[in-house]
């Protein structure tokens, strides 16, 4: 590997890791923080007939997980191309 490629590799990996951190922070927040740790406080609010904490634990977190994977997948595709790491067709 040439020096230039190696630098691109390091930068690419950094970009990947920071995207990972962001996604995993949201992952942790919507399920553990809103759905478990602060569920009682969240339950004082409601979404239709759902207590809000209960909704996050049984519905909301699943929707957010799905959104996160889609978001990650699209962003990673952009990062792959930006650093020239994408797969050749």
């Amino acid at each position, binding site marked *: 590997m040439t020096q230039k490629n190696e630098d691109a590799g390091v930068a690419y990996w950094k970009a990947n890791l920071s995207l990972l951190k962001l996604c995993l922070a949201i992952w942790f927040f919507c399920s553990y923080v809103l759905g478990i*740790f602060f569920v009682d406080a969240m339950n004082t609010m409601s979404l239709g*007939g759902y207590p809000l904490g209960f909704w996050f634990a049984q519905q909301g977190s699943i929707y957010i997980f799905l959104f996160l994977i889609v978001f990650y997948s699209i962003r990673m595709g952009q990062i792959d191309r930006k650093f020239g790491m994408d797969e050749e067709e």
Partner: protein
Amino acid sequence: MDLHDLTFLVVGATFAVYIGIAIWARAGSTKEFYVAGGGIKSWQNGMATGADWMSAASFISMAGLIAFKGYDASVYLMGWTGGYVLLAMLLAPYLRKFGKFTVPEFIGDRFYSQGARLTAVGCLITASITYVIGQMKGIGVAFSRFLEVDFTTGLFIGMGIVFIYAVLGGMKGITYTQIAQYVVLIFAYTVPAIFISLNLTDSVLPQIGLGSAMNDGSGTFMLDRLNQTVTDLGFASYTIQQGSTMNMFMLTLSLMIGTAGLPHVIVRFFTVPKVADARSSAGWALFFIALLYTTAPAVGAMARYNLTTTIQNGEVGVVEANIEYAERPQWFKNWEKTGLLKFEDKNGDGRIQYYNDKNKEFAAKAEAEWGWKGNEMVKIDRDIMVLANPEIAQLPNWVIALVAAGGLAAALSTAAGLLLAISSSISHDLLKSVFMPNISEKSELMAGRVAMSGAILVAGYLGMNPPGFAAQVVALAFGLAASSIFPALMMGIFYKRSNNIGAVAGMLVGILSTLIYIFMYKGWFFVPGTASLPDNPANWFLGISPGSFGALGALLNFVTNYVVSNMTAPPPEHIQQLVEDIRIPRGSGEATGH
């Protein structure tokens, strides 16, 4: 046509479809079998992963646990979906880039050691067998109801069918069969849910119905009504947490990382055409899984409501409000035959009193004021709720038949997939690669079948007296996968310094600590009556249940791997290069053979 014949017809028709597809799309070669053809689209792979993934635990058992545990059962919902986030971001793309077919192969290569590969095989088999025990419980429930026999007979018949199903070559991993199974399964799950949602509320979507007002003109929300109904009978409130926060956190985490560490799910991502497809396949898989998982809370809550109000159909304390045993509905009689539902007339009034007699205050009041002498529904197996649900709600017979077909599809597809994972790790990863390199293809196949039969017998025997409801047993399997496979894979990808000794030590510490902790409370090797300590929160270490220990086991695994790796020689240059290489998608190529 009566229900019995209709059920046979629907189940028979769905099986005919699976077999038909299997014959039509028969794999031509071993490689074709593994990669299921390069032309599989991400969404198709996602759908097939959904069928593989959603087992008796998801289909039959989970909503039943939700029905009786309410909010506390959220751990299963979050745990079994949140793991896909980890899978999509931390494992799938890198394992796909690595480009081999099995998890032990990756571990063996990355940690340049047969020892690591063997350890991985051992962990994989332990987790898979535990998983199959849970499936066997679900299969026993489904067959006992379907054939109207008792649970043990149902289990034996189920074992026979699983054996034929798993051994029949064409049914194994063919993506198109699994797509068909997914369609049957999701249809069978959501149709009754929609019916019931429309019965109780005005919403077509159960996800909305659960948060809507009842349609009886009262304007009361569904969940408020349910809370009222159950607390009136002395039960705990449905939407409020009962267990400890610590244990919920640990169990959810354990299920999430276990999901990302289960071999039969990971394997699916080895076989997509490109790295980018591995990421999007995980998204599609979660989309198809979420259709069932977001419906399950409504199924659970509405089943609990219908069950309770069928037995207690008016104000608590009024004599006529308790249904007479002689007038019990047909579904009640059917489930009594399986032995999974039991009634005992404790106060001899010929009526059924179903309430929480463990609630001392309420039980005393019930006895003094109404002459109730204890809860008379002495057994309601949680695992019957989903199958009984459409009957309880008095839905048309074809819906009930459809649910039976869906439950069987879920249980059989996953059990067969797991048994194949077990048999291939024994015949391929153990015998062929390590102990008997010269074994002929024929003997390899034979060894696989013997291993599979052994696994069915062990799992069937332990499934007769399982250490919990199907979903709970499956949760133990996730704990084992979480404590062993996931940390090894993650360290292999994200920590270049991790070496062979560190990985083996980590996996051993992780799985042994978790296994011993589980055996202490659930019985040694799950043999009933051999537990060292009673299985209740007072005896648990730091209040962590055996099912939740996997998260702690994983932590021990990570720490051991890190410390031992740093105390011993770093991995050789070509391994560090390998890690660099799997981190970038470019040059992925096709997955290659063994």
